[in-house]
């Protein structure tokens, strides 16, 4: 029998449902010969899950690219602002395209890791207090809790990204340390920022984080053929389960907005275009130049994302 330790963090939530489902499916398909023991924070700190995979502390783990950009430069392409990803299906499509690119597999192989699947996250829209901000000029001086590429994007239009941990985000909002917080919906719900919100940007879609699930290569290769087949074949099913589960959460999100009287702010296409030109373009060019200077195919990766998105839309 094979037993894998799996390191994730926090509590069981929408964000970990595909891992839970994968464990269930694998065990079913192998008649309990191959089981996964999922640990929520007991095996590693979330920012060190990739280290844990590299040293063989556990066999499977989840992490987010933005936690440590220098550990995983290639997949940070998926965290660039305003990629234009509109829904979770598109997020799955662009992620798996990048994950299969040799530059990504090579970089992860240096950590003894193989990218298995993504944990698709919706776009990090803002909740805010005060008057809704729907003109670019109104972002000037706005204190926003946003990290990584999204933080940079807001900075480019004059906002002030402010460091507070996600667990302090509610308090920071309540105390006026920040005016707005950028999170995915489930985090707005679980960190309580929705309770302080007066408005929510429904269509700003500034970007998201990319959080892959990886497996230790040695462990993967030492699986029996049947076990490996069970694992590989369960990935699409696990992702389907994740998507339908998250879909229900998004439905609930709309109800919560209504119940709490939070205003849904729709920005006009012109404002979004202006935002993209000011924030997304320079950040992307900068990112590509930086990757190319380190010998990574930055342009190629970005083009891959754009092409995948176009293909996905064309095909569906």
């Amino acid at each position: 029998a094979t037993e894998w330790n799996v390191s994730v963090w926090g509590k069981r939530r929408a964000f970990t449902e595909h891992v839970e489902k994968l464990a269930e499916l694998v065990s079913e398909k192998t008649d309990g010969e191959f089981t996964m023991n999922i640990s929520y924070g007991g095996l590693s700190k979330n920012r060190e899950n990739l280290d844990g995979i590299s040293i063989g502390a556990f066999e499977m783990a989840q992490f987010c690219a933005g936690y440590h950009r220098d550990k995983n430069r290639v997949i940070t392409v998926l965290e660039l602002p305003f990629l234009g990803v509109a829904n979770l299906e598109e997020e799955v499509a662009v992620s798996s395209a990048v994950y299969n690119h040799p530059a990504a597999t090579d970089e992860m192989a240096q950590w003894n890791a193989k990218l298995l699947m993504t944990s698709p996250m919706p776009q990090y829209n803002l909740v805010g207090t005060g008057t809704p901000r729907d003109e670019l000029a109104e972002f000037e001086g706005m204190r926003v809790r946003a990290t990584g590429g999204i933080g940079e994007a807001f900075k480019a239009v004059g906002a002030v990204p402010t460091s507070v941990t996600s667990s302090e985000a509610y308090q920071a909002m309540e105390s006026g340390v920040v005016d707005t917080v950028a999170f995915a919906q489930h985090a707005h719900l679980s960190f309580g920022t929705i309770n302080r919100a007066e408005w929510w940007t429904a269509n700003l879609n500034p970007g998201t984080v990319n959080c892959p699930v990886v497996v230790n290569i040695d462990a993967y290769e030492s699986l029996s053929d049947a076990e490996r087949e069970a694992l590989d074949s369960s990935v699409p099913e696990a992702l389907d389960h994740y998507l339908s589960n998250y879909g229900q959460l998004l439905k609930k999100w709309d109800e919560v907005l209504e119940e709490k009287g939070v205003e849904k702010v729709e920005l006009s296409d012109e404002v979004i275009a202006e935002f993209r030109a000011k924030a997304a373009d320079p950040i992307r060019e900068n990112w590509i130049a930086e990757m190319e200077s380190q010998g990574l195919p930055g342009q190629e990766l970005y083009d891959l994302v754009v092409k995948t998105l176009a293909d996905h839309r064309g095909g569906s």
Partner: protein
Amino acid sequence: MSEIQIGLWVTGGMLVLVVLGMRVAFAAALAGFVGLVWLRWSGFGYDPARFGKALEISVKIAGQVPHSKVSSQALSLIPTFILIGYLAYYAKLTSALFEAAKRWIAWVPGGLAVSTVFATAGFAAVSGASVATAAVFARIGIPEMLAAGYNKRFAAGVVAAGGTLASLIPPSAILVIYAIIVEQDVGKLLLAGFIPGAFSAVIYAGLIVAIAVIFKSVGPPVTGFTWRERLVSLPPALPILAVVVIIIFFVYNPFGEAWGTPTEGGAVGAFIVFVVALLRGMRFRQLLDALLETAKLTVMIFTIIWGVLIYVRFLGFADLPHAFADWIASLNSPPMVILICILLAYAVLGMFMDAIGMLLLTLPVVYPAVMALNGGENVAAADSAFGMSGPMCAIWFGILVVKMAEFCLITPPIGLNCFVVAGVRDDLSVQDVFRGVTPFFIADAATIALLVAFPAIVLWLPSLA
């Protein structure tokens, strides 16, 4: 051997090492490390050829922990709170506070002792470490009480017990540690400590007055301060008030539009005490001493933190916390009985262990069990065993265990505060201090019983926030 059995053997081994006198932090880390190797090698079927691999993986897992666990913004509150305590001493805030308390309340029976308790409570509002508070007031309060004809043991007991208030009254290093282990809101927990802390101070004061009234010779009243003397004693102590107000603004956000997060509040409070110390003539050498003392206490505490967390990492791989929570949940006794048993177990354990080490060692296992007992992390108050929601139960239990941990600071044989007080005074033995502190056990036991019976004392403030 099953993972659980390995977990139990390793835990037993750790206790043996601790009893043999190995430094607690390193005993826990060694146990954790050996446990990791054992667990991994048993996973390899004890294949001799793969022992090296098991060793290497375990070394690397353990080697991550010190850096990984201390690099935390929330934990930065600990050095800050300790630094405030030492700076406040050189800012002469502690003696000013004691002087003011003395002139206003020394006239009651046992008045100097009551003054000491209130002054420690006031100092507790800027200091985060009980031991540092006891050390400071042993130097300030005890000489005055002895000069006024107080019983020596009683005076020492007052200081040792008063020092413990620093852990409940925010800011508090130990509450921060609890919040981090159980992943709860630091601000709410600090807020929750305020009323139980003040409540403890009042119970101590009541006890002192009662003792002084019954045994006339123990603590005679000190009279003769004019109103003028009383009034002039207030301004030198005022900076404490300023720091308290600032910390309140950061931690509690009373007017909605507040100034920042608790972690920032602690650091800004330290900055103000530093400025006051400079204005009151702190010398460069004294600043260096304060920094060196801060470093010593901080490093000591953090070594326990990462050492124990190596052991906790091993527990995670052995899956012991789950097993224990399941076991507790499967017991058929009423939840309140189990909770009281847990608190009693802390009282016994606390006799032999240091407070921080005790919390770090036990909480990863005990906390999930208590939450399960109440009905789960997200249970609503109506469906819960203790009549409070999951997050509120986390706060309530936190205050209870911190109060237990304070209790441990004055219980023999290893009541750290008593050792510190005896260490500072050349005319007191540790036995003297332990004898003097005995009445305060009773006060603490009463306080804990009240906090268990009336959770509202703890939960009222945080429920407003």
